[in-house]
């Protein structure tokens, strides 16, 4: 798990470069909440603290949730998210290895549903030392701040462009603060670099990222070919949302993912399909969290139906030969 944390560094660094230190403070705060909640619950469950805190899984959940939230989010928002992630999604199910749902995504989904205003406060690219850092500590965001901050993510802006506007008109109107699109693409590439490190270290297998990204690519390409004026381009889908981050860092969480290789392929493809469905026809601009949670639900079924053929098992062998 330490390697996963190390692999998030390129992504975090790039995000910090574009959105300021609010990213780092998010991550640190979330990791601290994570350790605190884990310790508290372990104490209540009368379990030894050391091995569980030392495995860095709570820190990782914090890093992943912190990176998903708008930079310099209010402290209580992060706290609520981590409470849902560590206490509810992880420890109440029995701790590491027993949680059916991805903890970071449970936290994220809860926040997205409960506090939509705060969760969509993605600023336009910022200097390294943003004003918003202060509001993280006070925990309140004033209305004018909301106005000045309220940059939308590219996917968000595109989704709400309105039916009357065609894609080319939309982009011509310069809907986003300058540099936004560029920033998101660089961040996606940085996550890809971190993900490649995980692949190279054999910490994750290629199955889930490959099947998730390729299913997204196929659907996005088909839609784009069908009507390029209304559907976003495949590149926008892959490079500006949480697709890359989700494919390498969220969906590959082994605890809540399918286990057999065939199961992983189906699981990843399912996430890709759901992301595209929700992005295109659902109510949210991005959907990695919901897609992952929905596929988490399918994991027991996937595991049941994708048991590989043991060496020497007869009936399947006959089928193969014929």
């Amino acid at each position, binding site marked *: 798990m330490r390697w996963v944390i190390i692999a998030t560094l390129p992504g975090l660094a790039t995000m910090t470069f574009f959105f300021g230190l609010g990213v780092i403070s998010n991550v640190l705060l979330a990791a601290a909440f994570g350790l605190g909640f884990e310790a508290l619950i372990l104490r209540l469950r009368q379990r030894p603290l050391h091995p569980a805190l030392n495995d860095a899984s709570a820190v990782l959940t914090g890093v992943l949730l912190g990176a998903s939230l708008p930079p310099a989010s209010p402290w209580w928002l992060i706290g609520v998210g981590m409470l849902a992630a560590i206490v509810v999604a992880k420890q109440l199910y029995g701790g590491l290895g027993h949680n059916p749902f991805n903890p970071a995504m449970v936290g994220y989904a809860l926040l997205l549903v409960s506090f939509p205003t705060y969760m969509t406060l993605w600023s336009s690219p910022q200097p390294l030392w943003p004003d918003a850092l202060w509001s993280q500590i006070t925990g309140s965001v004033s209305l004018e701040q909301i106005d000045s901050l309220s940059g939308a993510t590219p996917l968000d802006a595109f989704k709400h462009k309105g039916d009357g506007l065609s894609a080319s008109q939309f982009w011509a109107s310069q809907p986003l603060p300058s540099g936004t699109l560029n920033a998101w693409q660089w961040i996606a590439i940085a996550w890809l670099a971190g993900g490649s490190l995980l692949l190279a270290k054999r910490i994750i297998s290629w199955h889930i990222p490959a099947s998730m990204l390729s299913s997204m690519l196929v659907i996005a390409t088909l839609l784009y070919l069908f009507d390029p004026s209304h559907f976003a381009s495949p590149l926008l889908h892959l490079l500006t949302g949480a697709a890359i981050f989700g494919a390498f860092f969220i969906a590959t969480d082994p605890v809540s993912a399918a286990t*057999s290789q065939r199961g992983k392929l189906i699981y990843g493809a399912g996430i890709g399909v759901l992301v595209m469905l929700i992005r295109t026809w659902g109510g949210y601009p991005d959907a990695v969290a919901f897609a992952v949670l929905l596929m988490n639900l399918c994991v027991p079924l996937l595991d049941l139906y994708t048991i590989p053929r*043991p060496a020497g098992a007869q009936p399947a062998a006959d089928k193969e030969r014929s």
Partner: protein
Amino acid sequence: MARTFEFHGGVLPPERKQRSLVPLRYAELPKRVVLRLDQHAGRPATATVAVGDTVKVGTPVAQRDGMISANIHASISGQVTHVDTHAITIDGDKTDTWQRLAPIDWRNALPDQLITRLEQSGVVGLGGAGFPTHIKARVSERQRIDTLVVNAAECEPYITADDLTLQHYAADVLEGAQLLASLCGAHHIMVGIEDNKPDAILALRQAMADSQLLTVTLSVIATRYPSGGERQLIKTLLNRDVPNQGLPADVGVLCHNPGTLLAALRSVRDGEPLVERLVTLTGDAITDPGNRWVRIGTPMAALLNEAGLNRAALHQLIQGGPMMGTPLPNLDGSVTKATNCLIAATIDELPPTPPESPCIRCGACEDVCPANLLPQQLHWYARASDDEKLASHRLFDCIECNACGYVCPSHIPLVDDYRSAKSRLRHQQLETAKAEHAKHRFEWRQARLAREQAQKQARRQARLSKQRSSQDADSPAASPQADLRSLRIAQTAAKAAVRKAEKNLARAAQQDPQQAHDDLETQLATAQENLQAAEARLAEARETSEPKETL
């Protein structure tokens, strides 16, 4: 060179074979040997000597008990000083006088003669399982075998016993393969060897240049643990899948280890019973590693001391390889027929496994499982004692190679879980089988008693009527004839029952050499007794009826 195929999974643990790859030597003659009676698969042998008896090297000291069991011979000359139900102790007289059996020219011998010799000599599989070789040789009575595989893969780290056997005795090993192949009717011999043994491969090539009775193919396979697993090797060499509830014989293959072939040849050609074997002594805690010819029963402490054991540095003593071997609690044991390797490891060499953490379902175990199972699912179900799921996830297909435990990032002792789950399930099966068996036995006894009662009644009736009729005239002896026929039928049925029981037992024991098969042994013994009784009755009936017939 023959084409090879791939099996699923596998790992590449550090080989550490170099240390013991030094010329072969003979270990010092031990002053005392302790011959364990349970050193082979199946039932322990029964001691046939008493304290005070004088024995030579090769004198039988214990007799096999039941079908799956093996004879044991004195491995030094001297005097028996202790006998109990577990072991026989012999104190040596340093003369090393031998008692050999008559050599047999196997090319011109009858199969029965060869099988009897293997059985007499106590030859068992020397790869580790210790399965009696004469039982394996008899498989052709039931199944057609086309290929004999010489399993020289030796994929476990550290062990080099097969490697050295082939380097020094390649021609003898191949002759032993010819012997056992012709015995089981195979027409093809395949030698599977990992590519990390160049010297052994060279020796084999040279030996193969001599003319051979049967065609021999040498297959050099990629080094990947557990390529030496029977199923994995058969898949790699022949691309045949051994059915998961079956045996290699089901796909026409028999596997033998080079050491076993050498021992089989020596027992036949030289009349030498199995009294010594090659043992790899290795590990960083000994200064003089290497392979030695060791007499069976040599105390481990003496053997390791001779190899320069540093007791202070010794952290763990392992019998077998580091992947599948058994850690030994102390140095008090003695070498058995199954001891292929002793690793005296230091703490740096094989550090203790870190404490277990929870399974995070990473699936690394699944990628390496050579049986293509889902080890982490099995782990959950084993811990939860979910027997149905264990069965549907094919727990019993696990070959316990420990590749999963080797790669597990949470350091979970997976194979320990599987072993305990297996033994729990086996115990359950055994209990049900026992109950069933007892029921059958009871019903059978009731039926027999009723039948005997009826027969007695009938005989009395017949006697009475005969007494009455003999006063009139001599009647034709029709009833003895009918009696004879029914007795003959009974004898044939009893013979068939014995054959069936033998077959069942041989199969079960080969599938599970580590397990006791007492119930099946009992069934076989019962069947044999029935057969004897039937034969005795038949002989008796013949005697009584013959005079009348000749009259």
